[in-house]
């Protein structure tokens, strides 16, 4: 539960439908996300949760529907513009840059804010050097926050999975986003790692006011930390409301317990 007061509707998804060839991944999905809230998207495997996130991010283009962010409506999102608008994301399968170390991966998240041109960088004096240092400071603060100081120069390919997930989060945080899309941030983690991750997510929401949209399978986590929940099943929305409302929803229960469709 966030202690911030929840604001107006910031992200509004309207009637999104997405198909791949003959397969309908999403059918007429609509929901909104309010500023500063933690919104969870849940549902059985294959329900279309990642696809939904991919639509918001611009990775997939939906055949129908629109997405409104801060008053501007789009029928499809462009990845780069999405990043510029302040929407950042982590990935289910981690999309870390394996050839770089932790600092460089998180620094890459600062890319949008680094303005020096090629010539300045080649000479590396004055503005270029100052810029690198200033952003390195920001990245170090993120590293402190995520408690990964000891691994800052390690190539990410060598880190264990749980730490890689933190680097993924760090890179998204480096973008100083207004909205953070988290795709199963706790997948494959044990209890302690999950608790750590929850703490990070809550702190991000609390300290920076970041709005969080979270895909998660662990019901305990979802019920504990989210303000509102959207439930998807077979690409359709079957529930939308507070955790308690959703928990007692008949359709949601049967979807998870597997009644015949």
């Amino acid at each position: 539960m966030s202690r911030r007061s929840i604001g107006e509707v910031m992200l509004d998804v309207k009637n999104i439908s997405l198909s791949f060839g003959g397969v309908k991944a999403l059918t007429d999905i609509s929901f909104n996300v309010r500023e500063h809230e933690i919104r969870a998207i849940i549902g059985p495997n294959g329900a279309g949760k990642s696809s939904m996130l991919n639509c918001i991010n611009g990775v997939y283009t939906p055949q129908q529907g629109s997405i409104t962010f801060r008053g501007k409506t789009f029928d499809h999102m462009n990845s780069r513009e999405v990043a510029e608008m302040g929407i950042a994301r982590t990935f289910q399968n981690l999309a870390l840059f394996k050839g770089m170390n932790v600092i460089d991966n998180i620094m890459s998240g600062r890319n949008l804010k680094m303005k020096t041109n090629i010539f300045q960088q080649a000479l590396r004096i004055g503005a270029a050097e100052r810029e690198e240092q200033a952003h390195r400071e920001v990245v170090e603060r993120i590293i402190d926050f995520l408690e990964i100081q000891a691994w800052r120069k390690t190539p990410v390919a060598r880190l264990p999975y749980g730490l890689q997930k933190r680097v993924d989060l760090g890179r998204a945080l480096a973008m100083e986003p207004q909205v953070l899309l988290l795709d199963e941030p706790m997948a494959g983690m044990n209890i302690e790692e999950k608790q750590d991750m929850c703490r990070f997510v809550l702190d991000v929401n609390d300290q920076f006011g970041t709005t969080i949209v979270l895909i998660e399978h662990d019901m305990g986590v979802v019920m504990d930390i989210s303000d509102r929940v959207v439930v998807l099943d077979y690409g359709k929305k079957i529930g939308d409301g507070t955790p308690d409302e959703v928990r007692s929803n008949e359709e949601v229960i049967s979807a998870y317990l597997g009644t015949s469709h």
Partner: protein
Amino acid sequence: MGPFLETLIGGLMTGMLYSLVALGFVLIFKASGVFNFAQGAMVLFAALAMARFAEWIPALLGIEHKVLVNLMAFILAMGVMIMLAWVVERFVLGKLVNQEGVTLLMATLGITYFMDGFGQTVFGSDIYKIDVGLPKEPMFLLEDVFQGGILVNQEELSAAIIAAALVALLAAFFQYTGTGRALRAVADDHQAAQSIGIPLERIWVIVWSVAGFVALVAGIIWGSKLGVQFSLSQVALKALPVVILGGLTSVPGAIVGGLIIGVGEKLSEVYIGPMLGGGIEIWFAYALALLFLLVRPQGLYGEKIIDRV
């Protein structure tokens, strides 16, 4: 009209020869996802083997009968190619299984260099002759329709026929035999194929051997026409645009691509070449390939390339 037809037919037949080399590429790519830059070196290596065996057999064994000598040389050369396939699989491919395409590509570049050097060390680096009895005199067709008739090179015609027969044979092999089916399964998904019991290593040796066979046939034909020399391995560079046009995964594509490139090259040299200073054969094929890469990278018959997050 006469000269145009001559150029056209000449182009078609040259194209067929390119297709022969391109076939080797397609086979290996289809079955293992590896792009074999060394195909050209294989053609040269095979041709060298054939040429030298054909020389050494009469010298060592005293057999003079031409057909017999050629047959024995062919079998020996084929044996060499199979051994080569085994060596490549064991020492190179087998160790690079999980690497990305670019690494494998560069490995085949390394194999190219190695084969070039090794082949010439073992078999020598002079120019050698191959004579398998392909008719060499030109024919004149349709002499009553066109003045002087249309000049058709019989050697190239035989090559074209052989190539076409080879393609039909390979297509049938893929479609109707158990091994062919296994090859197609491996091309589709290595791991799935392995999990149903298809022995990957053996399949790869088979594929490289078949490619070696194709290289041998191509080497004999090209070698018969041009003589066996180092520049033969450069033929591979000509074959690359062919597979781009036809599609890396398509056997008929290699044929169609080869024909288009062969005809295009000849026609452009004759009709556009003079305007640009001549000698544009070098890059015409590549310019065409570039065009396809920008517009339709999978070629005419290839499968669409998808990138997933």
